[in-house]
């Protein structure tokens, strides 16, 4: 039909807020449709017209055996597999359930004596790359529309898109925000991976590291600072792990 890349969208356990970001591209999505050949996107279209995909976008985390099979099948049919949204990248907010409970407890607490029922099955939340190889990540909860567009454009031109590896503070400074630490509010900006345009601090609310951290975050320094502000270890861990980031300090 055309030599435009065949693109498909799939979702697993998530809030589908990231595909909403794609839908929210408004007029841009119409232009986008000129660039790619959208062959599968269950939420907006009926039908799947392709056996193979040039690019498969995966949203959501993996929480049960039956999902693994579906995911592996998609992987086999896709040239390039993109994990988009924090749920897909590392389990995102769904990972909270791994931190606080053993899976037996979770199931018991929720389903009581019927927890054996197969369709209610669950296991600790996994990011997509814990099941199949991921070629590209688009982090964020939800994803940033501009970043998504940039990646699609770069892929269409045959480039390998790269994620920023600097903290959110960079983008926060560019916006000339008043740093939240000046107001006595703890912000994860110095550890968190930029790319969101520092949207939370720009709206007066601390960064929660929903895009994960930079490659080499200085967690020790953060702990020092939180100490200075009289935060307890528990509070520190809570603050940092909201979106699946491991709060531990390197010894």
């Amino acid at each position, binding site marked *: 039909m055309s030599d435009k890349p065949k693109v498909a969208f799939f979702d697993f356990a998530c809030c589908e807020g990231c595909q909403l970001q794609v839908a929210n591209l408004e007029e841009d999505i119409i232009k986008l449709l000129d660039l790619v050949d959208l062959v599968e996107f269950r939420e907006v279209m009926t039908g799947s017209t392709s056996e193979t995909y040039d690019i498969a976008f995966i949203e959501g985390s993996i929480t049960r055996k039956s999902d693994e099979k579906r995911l592996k099948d998609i992987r086999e049919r896709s040239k390039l597999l993109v994990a988009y949204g924090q749920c897909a990248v590392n389990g995102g907010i769904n990972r909270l359930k791994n931190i606080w409970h053993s899976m037996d407890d979770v199931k018991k607490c929720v389903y009581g004596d019927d927890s054996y029922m197969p369709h209610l099955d669950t296991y600790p939340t996994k990011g997509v790359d814990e099941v199949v190889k991921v070629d590209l990540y688009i982090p964020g909860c939800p994803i940033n529309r501009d970043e998504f567009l940039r990646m699609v454009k770069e892929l269409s*031109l*045959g*480039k*390998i898109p790269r994620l920023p590896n600097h903290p959110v503070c960079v983008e926060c400074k560019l916006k*000339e925000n008043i740093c939240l630490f000046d107001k006595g509010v703890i912000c994860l900006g110095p550890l968190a991976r930029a790319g969101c345009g520092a949207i939370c601090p720009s709206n007066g609310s601390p960064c929660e590291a929903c895009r994960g951290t930079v490659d080499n975050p200085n967690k020790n320094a953060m702990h020092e600072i939180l100490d200075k502000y009289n935060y307890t270890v528990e509070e520190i861990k809570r603050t940092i792990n909201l979106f699946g980031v491991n709060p531990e300090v390197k010894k």
Partner: protein
Amino acid sequence: MAETYPHKEVIEKTSIYLPEVATLREKRPMTPFDTYFSFELRDHSLGHRPGQFAEISIPGIGEAPISVSSPPATDNRFEMVIRKVGTVTSAIHSLEVGEKVGVRGPYGTSFPMEALKGSSLLFICGGIGLVPARSAIKYALEHRDDYKNISILFGCKDPAQRLFVDELEQWKQRDDIVFYETVDTTDLSTYLEMSHMDLSYRGPVDEWKSKKWKDNVGVITTLFPKLDYVDPRETYAIVVGPPVMYKFAIMNLHDMELSDDHIILSLERRMKCGVGKCGHCQIEDIYVCQDGPVFYYNDISYIKGVI
């Protein structure tokens, strides 16, 4: 930021960032990831000196600093060898003959071939370091009478990664120069380690799978003992290679009593603008793109971590 004033956009005729157009005239794979390119400018010669580099670009993909590996020329052609490592270099690799690239340059310092007249030259080239060094080697060979002894040491990872194989053979044959080469290993499995690169050109791999390497094996410093007496007063060493090579090469040269002002290096750093503005290539107080890439070692030896 409220922007109230109407914005005026003008065309700059003289921007330092504006590339010229060059056409790809010849392209030849050398190793599975290094390709030889010959470009031609439209109406003038690049005008470079040995050791200089140029910024090569493709609109929408990006720009990358690449050394010119041909000696200064009067025609509009110049040669490069480009290793496929990322976005820009991959895009250049996929160009067809007749397609075009953007060129800015030449930039940077060069090997002081004029000043070295009357001296002996000792080239020490590791891997892709042969590429910039070749411009000086060829220049010296073209002006053979201007120099006393010329010795060339070349080392690379394995036989399939040798560059300019034909020229290496020629140099080996010449009796007016000394040429030694070595490979770190004859085991081609290093390719497999690098298997994230697609081995689009398997030629040398297949060739060396069936052939046997008869020359030296070992790191490049194992070639030093083969050299006859090198007079440290009249010899200048030109060293180009991967970051790890410099330290050991310089140690050996010091053993041969070459002083730092007789050691000339070409360094590589992250580089964006090529014209001393963007700050990426700065090592301490020097800008590699302008103060380098070619340095006398005594000018930079005080810098920790320079090599």
